[in-house]
């Protein structure tokens, strides 16, 4: 909520900076940021909503969220001519720490239509063991017996199990690894996400990319937390199912622009 308020203030203050110049001015390029948000079936989730067992998944389990970190990579805006601009190679979003949630593009953009794409997790080509110092320091790595590289997501909290006991769950997604150990067989379960077309205009554009957490439990597989709540990293089938349920988790949210005139 605070973030939204902040964005709003930022937008308003940009608007307030309008100049009254009547003469033809050069094209205003837009400063573009991606804002990563989360929701559970429509209600926003930030650190403020953490820890309360107040969400119900498709299978009917009540649950809380108390840690949520995920990695997005290859964040790219493509213009109408097919020219790509890489906004970020990767970004670790940590909802609890409110870090990585707003990613500002290193370049500005001319007004126009663009498509936005990114990847949930690292593709195999980028999922190089120990390659990213900041991610190593964030303890984001996957142990070697599971193929190394990095987590895609750590979503954790409590759910009330079928025996009415508050139980910790760890919904961790990684590259699926069969036969953990010396030489696991690996399957790239990162997810290419095409968020569709959007319009960039004005001096500032903030593009919201929303994770609908409910989807992880819903579609196409109705997830039963009683069965699959823990030790999911070495569970090859679970990782494949997470990949299936992850296909529609991310959506384009609001695109806010500050228009000069």
């Amino acid at each position, binding site marked *: 909520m605070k973030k939204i308020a902040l964005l709003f203030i930022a937008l308003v203050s940009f608007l307030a900076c309008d100049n009254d110049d009547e003469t033809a001015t050069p094209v205003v390029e837009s400063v573009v940021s991606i804002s990563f948000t989360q929701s559970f079936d429509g209600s926003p989730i930030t650190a403020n909503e953490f820890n309360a067992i107040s969400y119900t998944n498709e299978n009917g389990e009540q649950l809380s969220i108390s840690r949520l970190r995920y990695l997005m990579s290859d964040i790219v805006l493509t213009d109408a001519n097919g020219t790509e601009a890489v906004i970020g190679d990767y970004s670790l979003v940590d909802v609890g720490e409110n870090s990585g949630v707003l990613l500002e593009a290193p370049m500005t953009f001319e007004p126009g239509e663009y498509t936005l794409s990114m990847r949930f997790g690292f593709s195999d080509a980028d999922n190089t063991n*120990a390659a990213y*110092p900041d991610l190593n*320091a964030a303890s984001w790595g996957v*142990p070697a017996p599971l193929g*190394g590289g990095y987590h895609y997501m750590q979503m954790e909290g409590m759910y009330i199990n079928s025996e009415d006991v508050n139980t*910790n*769950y760890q919904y961790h997604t990684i590259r699926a690894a069969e036969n953990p150990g010396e030489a696991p067989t690996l399957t790239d379960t990162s997810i290419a996400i095409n968020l569709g077309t959007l319009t960039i205009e004005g001096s500032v554009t903030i593009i919201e990319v929303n994770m609908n957490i409910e989807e992880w439990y819903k579609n196409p597989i109705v997830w039963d937390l009683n069965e699959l709540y823990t*030790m999911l990293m070495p569970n090859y089938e679970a990782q494949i199912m997470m990949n299936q349920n992850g296909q529609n988790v991310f959506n384009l949210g609001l695109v806010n622009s500050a228009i000069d005139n």
Partner: protein
Amino acid sequence: MNKIILTSLILLLLASCGKDNDDALGYIPTPAEIATPLLFQQLIPEAVIPEDNPQTEEGIALGKRLFYDKRLSLDNSISCASCHRPQEGFSDSRTVSIGVDGAPGTRNSMPLVNLAFNYFGNFNWDGSAATLEEQHETPITSPIEMHSTFADITAMVEADANYPLQFEQAFNVTNVTKTEVTKALAQFVRTMVSGDSKFDRHLLGEATLTPQEQNGLDVFLDETRGDCFHCHGSPTNPLWTDNIFHNNGLDTTFDDRGRGDFTGDPNQFGQFKSPSLRNLAYTAPYMHDGRFATLEEVVNHYSEGLVYSDTIDPLMKAVDVGGVALSETDKADLVAFLLSLSDPSFINNPAFLPSNNP
């Protein structure tokens, strides 16, 4: 020729623009680097050095002298090193620290190791200090620690035969204040880097793990057994800590609310900073209150001693039955692996031990 004259003129001008106060003594301390182990260079971001307190040879030497100086305490009875003892991994084998007058503290002393690589700026068990400089103020003035005042310390420094010159050389000041005292201590503490354990050498191909240590590592990294790596680092995080706060299931209610006492957030009651697992061979007893005397007790805790509370970390597994119940072999091997992270060269490094000449 003309150029030389011009340059000298400019230099003269610049020189005459210098501040006229006594503080400009003209000492230029010698810059010093943090000795960063190869693995750290390869794996993690650089050490965090505040812009307003660069490392210098003079500052580090001064900080070391202060660290071992008992005159920093009210009755000249204890120094930093009384609770951060070199042979105990710069921590303290007493369950809780004892301050001047035998005043007992409430927490186990923390080992001083690799603190220059804490990127998140959260020192103490509860993260109550954001910088080392800020941290060092507390033990000096706390009634249950050194119980002194900076006025007393400044007076002591000024009356000393060598300190005034040392402060001048390190910080270019004659007027010593809290700022320079804590800066010097922080420079010294930042040099305390440990990265030469058997396990480090194993990663560099210079040592071989025993089968027990290797199995212990597997237990540590296996989500179905130890699953320690989510909080305590791994071969790709050589700090062996995530430097963040967790409730690892020690208690159902909290005498010491840890992080939650500092932030006031009930969701953080009972959370403490994950300690680094380096140098455990020297740093017993364990946990924020020193409740476990041995690593076997620690491992038993994670294996079958976990207890539920509302803020228990979601990474803790099978809490309703106390944990995942490791086999006796896995437990023993886990301890063997943990001990391979101890670094004798760290506790015996003359650079960190008291020097004879002040």
